[in-house]
C-alpha cells in the first residue's frame, strides 16, 4: 500500500509490508466505527436498537469511508512519488 516504487523487496521487507497492511486495515476499521458512529447515530440513546435511518446511514457511510480511504491512499502515493513525500515526515 505504501510501497513507494522501491526495487525488489527482500522477504523480510515483504513480511513487514504485510504486517503493516494488516495494521492499516485494523486501524481503518476502528476509525470507520468512530467516524461513522459520530455521523450517523442519534446521541440521545432513547432507543437501544438502530433505527432504519441510522442503519442505512451506517451502510452508506462505510462505503464512502472506504472509497475515501482508497482515494486518499492512491493520491498520497502519486503525490508522494512526485514530491518525494516522506522527507517532511
Amino acid at each position, binding site marked *: 500500500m505504501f510501497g513507494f516504487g522501491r526495487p525488489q523487496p527482500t522477504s523480510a521487507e515483504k513480511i513487514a509490508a504485510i504486517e503493516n497492511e494488516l495494521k492499516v486495515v485494523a486501524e481503518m476499521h476502528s476509525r*470507520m466505527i468512530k467516524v461513522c458512529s459520530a455521523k450517523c447515530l442519534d446521541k440521545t440513546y432513547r432507543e*437501544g436498537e438502530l433505527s432504519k435511518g441510522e*442503519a442505512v446511514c451506517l451502510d452508506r457511510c462505510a462505503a464512502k469511508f472506504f472509497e475515501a480511504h482508497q482515494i486518499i491512499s492512491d493520491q498520497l502515493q502519486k503525490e508522494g512519488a512526485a514530491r518525494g513525500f516522506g522527507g517532511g515526515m
Partner: protein
Amino acid sequence: LQKRQVKEFMTVFGNLVDNCFNACVDDFTSKVLSGRETGCISRCVIKSMTTQARLGERFAELNAAMTAEMQQKMSR
C-alpha cells in the same frame, strides 16, 4: 495477529466507554449512576454493538470486493 486483535478490541471498547459515558452522564451531584444514566448507557452499549457488528460486515464485504478487484488487475 492475536495481539493486534486484542489491541483493536481495546481501542474500540475504550471508545465505546468514553462515548457512552460522555453521551449519558452529565450530572455530578451524586457519585452513583442514576437509573436514567444506567438505562442510557445500556441502550448506548447495545446500539454501539449493533453498529460495530453492522460496520464489521460492511467492512468485510468492501475489503473482499477490493481485494478481488486488485487481484484481477494484477493477473492481467
